[in-house]
């Protein structure tokens, strides 16, 4: 029989594709259904955050930070305001930091719920997605009663918060936690330990720890490979050092260490850790003011600052340069999704197109965060 002549096909996945989590375009070179190469193309959601920041006053940048990673607005703001406060060299009241941590952790849970739910959707399970969104709604309700917004909050300001916690917040937050713990168990039974789900995700997209570190991966993507690295613990900022919680890492219990299932499961386990932090913060929430005395027009002294924080997706950092005026000279955002996305070609070669979807979902990117 004559040798069958086959050739590779270039397949354009995205920017309008249901499972690229936004407007990511991946150029796939496929041999049948086997992925030979995957080249991510980004920039479809570029909104010039960094350039905008140069013509805004320090307070006006906060809403732009909201829009970077639109699923983790609170975390973005948290890192930015910490940077500005460090630049100004001011101390905010303890209550402010506690509330910020509560909000950031709630935001982390909400973000992980989106990630977990849409991951189920990628694998073909529709129901867990709606269960996750049902619970996320409750967190958004908490945010709404605090600051009026459900997605982009503009809640954390340099020097404090826009509003104090409303009456009844603590009770409602506790009621949510009480409702939510069994919901995680249900999610695990429905999706995480589902035989088909495990088969689809275990041993797929294996990311060894050394490659993850070389590419600058962070967050659940890095921890899924078994690296115990979480800035909340390793370089504690805000008041994270006052709480008792653990860093969770992938275990490789279903397949190889660093596969899609590990990256997925780290997020599920992290939700529990975030709940622990929130419970402790609610218990020990100090009384006090929610706004430090800072001038209306912020003029930080000449200098520069680099703040790192752990966003739901990984290491989110801001590099802020001040020239002594009301506007920053430069604001650079170090986005976790960007570094994590760069891993994609490395971990997707040799898998099927169906696995490709599982891999993109497990790396958990937000295109707003990638492009800024």
């Amino acid at each position, binding site marked *: 029989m004559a040798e069958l002549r086959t050739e590779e096909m270039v397949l354009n996945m995205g920017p309008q594709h249901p499972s690229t989590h936004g407007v990511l375009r991946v150029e796939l070179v496929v041999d049948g*259904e086997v992925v030979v190469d995957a080249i991510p193309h980004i920039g479809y959601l570029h909104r010039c955050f960094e350039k905008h920041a140069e013509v805004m006053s320090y307070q006006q940048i906060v809403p732009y930070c909201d829009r970077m990673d639109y699923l983790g607005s609170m975390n973005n703001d948290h890192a930015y305001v910490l940077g500005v406060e460090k630049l100004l060299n001011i101390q905010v009241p303890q209550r402010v930091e506690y509330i910020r941590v509560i909000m950031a952790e709630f935001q982390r849970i909400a973000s992980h719920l989106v990630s977990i739910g849409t991951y189920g959707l*990628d694998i073909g*399970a529709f129901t867990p997605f709606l*269960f996750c969104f049902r619970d996320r709604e409750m967190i958004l309700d908490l945010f709404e009663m605090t600051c009026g917004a459900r997605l982009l909050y503009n809640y954390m300001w340099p020097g404090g918060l826009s509003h104090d916690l409303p009456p009844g917040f603590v009770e409602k937050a506790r009621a949510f936690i009480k409702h939510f713990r069994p919901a995680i168990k249900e999610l695990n039974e429905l999706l995480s330990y589902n035989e088909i789900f495990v088969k689809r995700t275990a041993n797929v997209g294996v990311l060894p720890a050394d490659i993850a570190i070389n590419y600058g991966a962070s967050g659940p993507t890095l921890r899924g490979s078994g690296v115990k690295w979480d800035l909340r613990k390793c370089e504690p900022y805000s008041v994270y050092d006052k709480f008792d919680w653990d860093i969770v890492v992938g275990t490789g219990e279903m397949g190889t260490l660093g596969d899609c299932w590990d990256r997925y499961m780290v997020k599920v386990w992290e939700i529990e850790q975030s709940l622990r932090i929130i419970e402790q913060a609610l218990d020990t929430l100090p009384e006090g003011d929610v706004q430090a005395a800072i001038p209306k027009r912020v003029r930080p002294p000449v200098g520069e600052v680099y703040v790192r924080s752990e966003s739901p997706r990984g290491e989110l950092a801001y590099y802020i340069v001040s020239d002594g005026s009301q506007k920053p000279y430069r604001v650079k955002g170090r986005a976790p999704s960007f570094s994590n996305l760069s891993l994609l070609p490395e971990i997707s070669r040799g898998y099927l197109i169906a696995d490709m979807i599982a891999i993109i979902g497990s790396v958990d990117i937000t295109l707003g965060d990638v492009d800024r």
Partner: protein
Amino acid sequence: MHNFITYYIGAGFWGSLVSSIIPLVFILPFALVAIWLELKISAHMQDRVGPMRTGKWHGWAQPLADVTKLIQKEDIIPAAADKALYILAPALVFVGAYAAYAAIPFSPAYIGSNINLGIFYIVAVSALVVIGILMAGWSSNNKWSLLGAMRTAAQLVSYEIPSSLAILAVVMVAGSLNLNDICAAQSGWFWNWFVFGKFPFLFITFIIYFIASLAETNRSPFDIPEAESELVAGYHTEYSGMRFAFFYLAEYANMFVVAAVAAVLFFGGWNSPFGTFLSGPVWGVFWLIGKGMVLVFIQIWLRWTLPRFRVDQLMYLSWKILTPFALVNIFAVGLWVVLRG
């Protein structure tokens, strides 16, 4: 029923037309009811309420509204498509699903065509659907559609074999390929049903058939050819309007075909579960459709619970698990039939 109609109208052109239109009269409302049920059942499984406004009562008119919308939509044929195949494909898919209804015994008195190769005929025409899907995928001139069509071909060779082997086991017990005879062999109380016969072999056979039939209807967890999150919409990515509706209709028509075949082969078909209670030609229709709907409900239930298999995992399941089990089953059932009758 065929006799009944030909008695009044005559066996000529009009008689044949009327008796072949009757299944169509069933499929269209059935598809609408099934779509509505799917909307509502999935909604309640997911803590939602589903459509509530259209038609006042629990959104009963939602499928009608959907179909009206689809009819009104522009019929787009991509410029680079293979036009003839593109137009023919949805029709072929629907014909494959529709033709199978001819041999389904709705009641002892009404069977479209009481041929003695009934089940064989259904297996054969259902396979036509796959050709339509391949045509749709190829003619769209879209890489995603093509991948969906290729997956269908892979799926076809995988599920047809365990499914046919499962059917063969029942045929051996009943000693006939005629679906009416297979039903008649299970008359009496429900313990005469084949699903409980030759225990546990025919029960395992039923499980094998049911899993394979899920793959045949391209439903989750085997909705690989149209895997929405992977292939956008698979083979019908480029279709719109009424042509898309045909694929949609065929899917639901096919769902009922496999459910009805399972009901006939394993659950007594038109027999009442309680001996002579509510049995007879008219109640037969009720029992068959009722049993079919229960199985359709299970299909819907599974769809909204399980994630999707990967194409190679489906083939693994079919070739390395279902096929050997089906063969062992055939051997065991055959031995039982030979030794004990």
